[in-house]
Every structure is written in structure tokens, then in C-alpha cells.
């Protein structure tokens, strides 16, 4: 990875121009990527009137926490958060239970029938039954609308498993297993006491990959969950953000007959508040990931890099 010292060789004019352009384009790109996120954050702390009327540009206008107070009043968000807090860790654990032993076993050259198993796991990457046959199978297993549905489904990403297998193959020398076998260690023991401790980095990567996927998943719940108490955060977000199912938006609309101006203003304000609340909701729901992100970013990158060794 070591870069060659460029100072030894005189930079040509073209190179200098190239550098300047490169830097400018990168700064523009960073701005384009960051601004929508930054805007969402400042909009969430601003007076909704200012947001809706386009007064919020670079910093919060008339800072207020009211949108956040409204978000916290929505009961369903708490249900979604609670379900995610249960499903994501347990589901990730289930992912690891399926992924790690499989990857380890497939990395073993001595395994009789290794080619068969490799093919067995490869086929579903390219071919599948499709939505309806899968749905019917899940239904036959009585996994529709249960508290375990979102934990059990999506149990094994074959791509992740292959990344893991490559790690076992390339990062842990075969010799240590050989000597362990000679010393009489069983395969269980070799896996649990040798391979797993040595594979800590990839376990961290896998846990993160799976956990983020689960936190952000809404498709599984859309198809298999209809019970409101079991809905994950993303489905509830969709309800509020995209389908406008907020307590605020349809508050008291049935009494619209009154021509009290004060009342109409309150109503209008509520519509605005419902808009403003959306920005804070986006921020709140993404915050756990975005706050953790700078610290765990290098693990993700590592995962991709290991994966790229053998796609």
C-alpha cells in the first residue's frame, strides 16, 4: 500500500492541474453527499414553518424541540424501537450461529463431499423460488405473524458466508489444525476453541453487516407481518413518513365545520408540525447507525476487502 514518494520526481504541469481539479471535484462531491443529510438534521431542529417555506438553508431557523416532542408522543415509534431492539440482536446472533460453523466447515479441505456442499450453497445465490412460493413455504411452517418471524427469516446470507469462508481459509494457517488433530483435539474443539477466537475480526464484521441489514429491513415485515404490535421500526417509519399516518395529521379533522379562525390556525399549524416531525423522525431512526458509523466504518471496509479476494 506504500505510496511512492512523489517529491523525488518533479511534478509536471499536467499533474498539478490534475491535483487541483481532483481536489475540487472531491470537495463538490462531499458537499452533494453531505448536504441532504445536514439539511435533514437542521430542518429537524427548525420551526416547521421556516422549513416548509424554504427559509432553512445553512443553519436551524427559530430552533425548537417541538418536532421531537411530537415524535416521542407517537406510541408506535416506541413499539417499533422495542421490536428492533429485540429482533436485531437475537436475529444477528442467529445469523452468526448459521454463518460461522458453515463457513468453517466449508473451509476444510479434508471434508468429504466439500464440492457437493459448495454447490448446494451456491445454487440459491442465482436461483430461487420467487416471492409467492417462498411465501407459501413460510406459511406452511406457520411463521406468518409470529414474534420469531423477523428473527428466523434472513438467517443466512450466502455471500457473507463465503466472505467468512475465505477468511478462515486465508487468515488461519492449516498447520495449527493439524497439530491440534495430532494432539487429539476434536473438530468441535478446534472450531470453538481455536477457529472462533482467531476469527474475532471477521465475526465483528459479520455481526455488523447482519445487524445493519436487519435494522434497515422492511421487506420481510411487509410480506410476513401484519400484527401492529410486531412491526419493526422501518414499517412504522414508512407508515408515518410515506403514508402520512400520523396522529397529528388527522387530529380533529372531523370537526372542520367550525369557522373559528383561531381553530383553523391551530389546525394549519398541526399540518406543519406533521411535516416538521418527519425530519426529526428520519434523524432519530438513523441516529444509532450514523453515530456508530465513524467508529465501525473500518470494519465494514475490511469485510468488503476480504470479500473481494474471492467474489
Amino acid at each position, binding site marked *: 500500500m506504500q*505510496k511512492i514518494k512523489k517529491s523525488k*520526481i518533479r511534478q509536471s504541469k*499536467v499533474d498539478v492541474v*490534475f*491535483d487541483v481539479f*481532483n481536489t475540487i*471535484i*472531491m470537495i463538490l462531491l*462531499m458537499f452533494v*453527499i453531505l448536504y*441532504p*443529510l445536514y439539511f435533514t438534521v437542521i430542518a429537524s431542529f427548525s420551526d416547521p414553518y421556516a*422549513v*416548509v417555506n*424554504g427559509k432553512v438553508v445553512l443553519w436551524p431557523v427559530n430552533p425548537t424541540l417541538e418536532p421531537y416532542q411530537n415524535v416521542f408522543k407517537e406510541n408506535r415509534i416506541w413499539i417499533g424501537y422495542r421490536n428492533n431492539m429485540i429482533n436485531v440482536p437475537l436475529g444477528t446472533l442467529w445469523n452468526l450461529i*448459521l*454463518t460461522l460453523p*458453515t463457513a468453517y*466447515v466449508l473451509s*476444510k*479441505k*479434508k*471434508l468429504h*463431499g466439500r464440492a457437493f456442499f459448495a454447490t448446494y450453497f451456491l445454487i*440459491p445465490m*442465482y*436461483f*430461487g*423460488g*420467487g*416471492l*409467492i*412460493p*417462498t*411465501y*407459501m*413455504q413460510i406459511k406452511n411452517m406457520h411463521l406468518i405473524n409470529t414474534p420469531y418471524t423477523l428473527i428466523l*427469516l434472513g*438467517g443466512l446470507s450466502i455471500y457473507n458466508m463465503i466472505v467468512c469462508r475465505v477468511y478462515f481459509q486465508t487468515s488461519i494457517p492449516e498447520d495449527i489444525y493439524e497439530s491440534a488433530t495430532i494432539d487429539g483435539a*476434536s*473438530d*468441535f474443539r478446534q*472450531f470453538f476453541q481455536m477457529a472462533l477466537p482467531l476469527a474475532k475480526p471477521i465475526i465483528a464484521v459479520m455481526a455488523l453487516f447482519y445487524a445493519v441489514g436487519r*435494522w*434497515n*429491513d422492511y*421487506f420481510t415485515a411487509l*410480506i410476513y407481518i401484519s400484527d401492529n404490535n410486531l412491526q419493526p421500526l422501518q414499517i412504522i*417509519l414508512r407508515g408515518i*413518513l*410515506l403514508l402520512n399516518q400520523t396522529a397529528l395529521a388527522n387530529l380533529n379533522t372531523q370537526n372542520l365545520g367550525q369557522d373559528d379562525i383561531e381553530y383553523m390556525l391551530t389546525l394549519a399549524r398541526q399540518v406543519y408540525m406533521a*411535516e416538521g416531525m418527519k425530519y426529526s423522525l*428520519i434523524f432519530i*431512526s*438513523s441516529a444509532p*447507525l*450514523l453515530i456508530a*458509523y465513524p467508529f465501525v466504518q473500518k470494519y465494514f*471496509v475490511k469485510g468488503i476487502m476480504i470479500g*473481494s479476494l474471492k467474489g
Partner: protein
Amino acid sequence: MNAAAAKENRVINRPARSARWLRGLRRILSDWQLYVLIAPAVIYIFLFNYMPMYGVQIAFRNFKPSKGIWGSPWVGLKYFEKFVKNPLFGRLIWNTMRISLYSLATFPLPIILALMINELDNQKFKKTVQMITYAPHFLSTVVVCSMITLFCNKDSGLFNHIAEALGGQRTAFLEKAYLFTPIYVWSGVWQGIGWSSILYIAALAGVSPELVEAARIDGANRFQIILHVNVPSIMPTIVITLIMSCGGILSVGFEKVYLLQNKLNLDASNIIATYVYELGLLNAQFSASAAIGLFNTIVNITLLLIVNAIAKRVSDIGLF
């Protein structure tokens, strides 16, 4: 059976068949713990992936939930014919293809980004660029689609405030069918460009420094080095990724299209995946929906094999 074992067999020179069979069995028995370790995943994949493949036969039957798979009569290719004759057929295929071809056209962008990041000398700046460009990848599809919907709002959206400030007209961007594909693709670029570039940055780290130095001594400028050293070096990665994307031409993801879909942009946003969902789960036409899904999968696999074969012939790089 691996090569070493076969060789061993030849050396010992026994009545080969039964001996090999016995040896295989003995190896399985002595490694039983490995099979125990792999068993949960094998069962899981069987239940959740292979069973649905078996269930795909409902595409060829007139499936009635009350009769079960076996009790429903065979109807052959009826549902495939029905799909091809469906007035929506052309539109669904074209919508799906337009979105993925448009996405495919943005395929070089992460490569260009990786090449540019690779040229940054200031490590701190480089790290910052990477950190920021990777970030949107972690937002959920629901959040990204909500941001798009909020920003595109005609009266209150950020994009419309910007458009107005620049002297343009306020438009309900998401309600215009002709804007659906660009919005879908460019928001995808926004979210994914950094993350997709990681693969190429990793590949660029493997470019031989000697080659770069030699080129520089020969008087090549940065631009020429990128074009003649860096790009050829990461070609295998590029080709593999390209094959994978070509294979997915008819598999535009359901999630994002479904969330951005509305009655007014349906002309452009009705794709195979959303139609399968609507027909199968909302209208309970199981067989018809399964047939369309299967049709889609078969086209995808065929495309993947074709592109793979072409790539192999042209560049000697392939998946299989």
C-alpha cells in the same frame, strides 16, 4: 473425491469401487462433528431456499390453497402465455429494463471515484472523502425514499426551493412519470457511489508500485498512469462486477421502487417485482404471480450465462 485420495487409491490398487466407498464412509464417520456443525445451515437452506424452488411448480398448475400443491391440476404454460398476452407485459418489461439499463450506465461512476480517491496524497483528506461518501449507504431504503419524497414535494420540498431560487418552475417531481427513472437512479448513485467504490479502492491497493514508478520515470503524467497502469490492473474486478450487474438486468429491487411508486408515476414505476407482489399477495393470484416470478428468474440466469460467456471469450475473466 480430491486428487490426493484418488492417487492413494491407485497406489494401493485394490478392487477399487467398494474400497473407495468404504473409505468415503469411514472419512464421513471420523469427521462426523464437521457434519454436525454444517447441519443447521444445510437444513435452513433446504427449508427456506430449496423448498420454495420445489414449490415453484405452482406456476404450471392452477393452484388453489384449499387443494394444496399436489391437488391442483396441471395447466402447463397457461400462466406464462397469459403474462405474455397481458397488455401490461410490454410496459412491465420495458420499465424494469429501462431502470436497470439506466443504472448500468452509472456503473463507471464508482470506478472513477475510486481512481480519484486513489490519487489523493493527503491521507487525512482522503480518509474524510471516504468516510463521507460511504455514509449514505447505511441509511435504510425507507429513510432514503422518505427524504426523496420530502425533498420533491411541490410546495415544501428542498429541491423545489432550490429550483425556485434558480429561477425554475415548482414541479411535483415524483408525480412525473418521465422523472421516475432519473430520480431512482441518481438517488441510488448518491447512496451507493462511495460504498461501491470500496471494492475498486481495494483492487487499486494491489497495483504494483514498480509499474507506477516505471511509468513515471518514462515520463507519464498522472492521467496517463491512471489510464495505462491503474485501469488495466483493476480490469478483472471491473469485469466481474459488470457481469454480475448484467445478470441482474431484470431484477430491479422491489423495495425502493415500491416505496417511490404512486398513482401518477405508475406508467414508469410499474415493474415486474412490484407487479408480482401486487398480483400474488394483494390479489391472491398465486399461480399467475409465481409464473411471472419464474419467468423473471429464468431471464436473469440466461443473461448472466450469456454475459459470462462473452466476458470469458473477450477477456478470459468469468464467474464460472
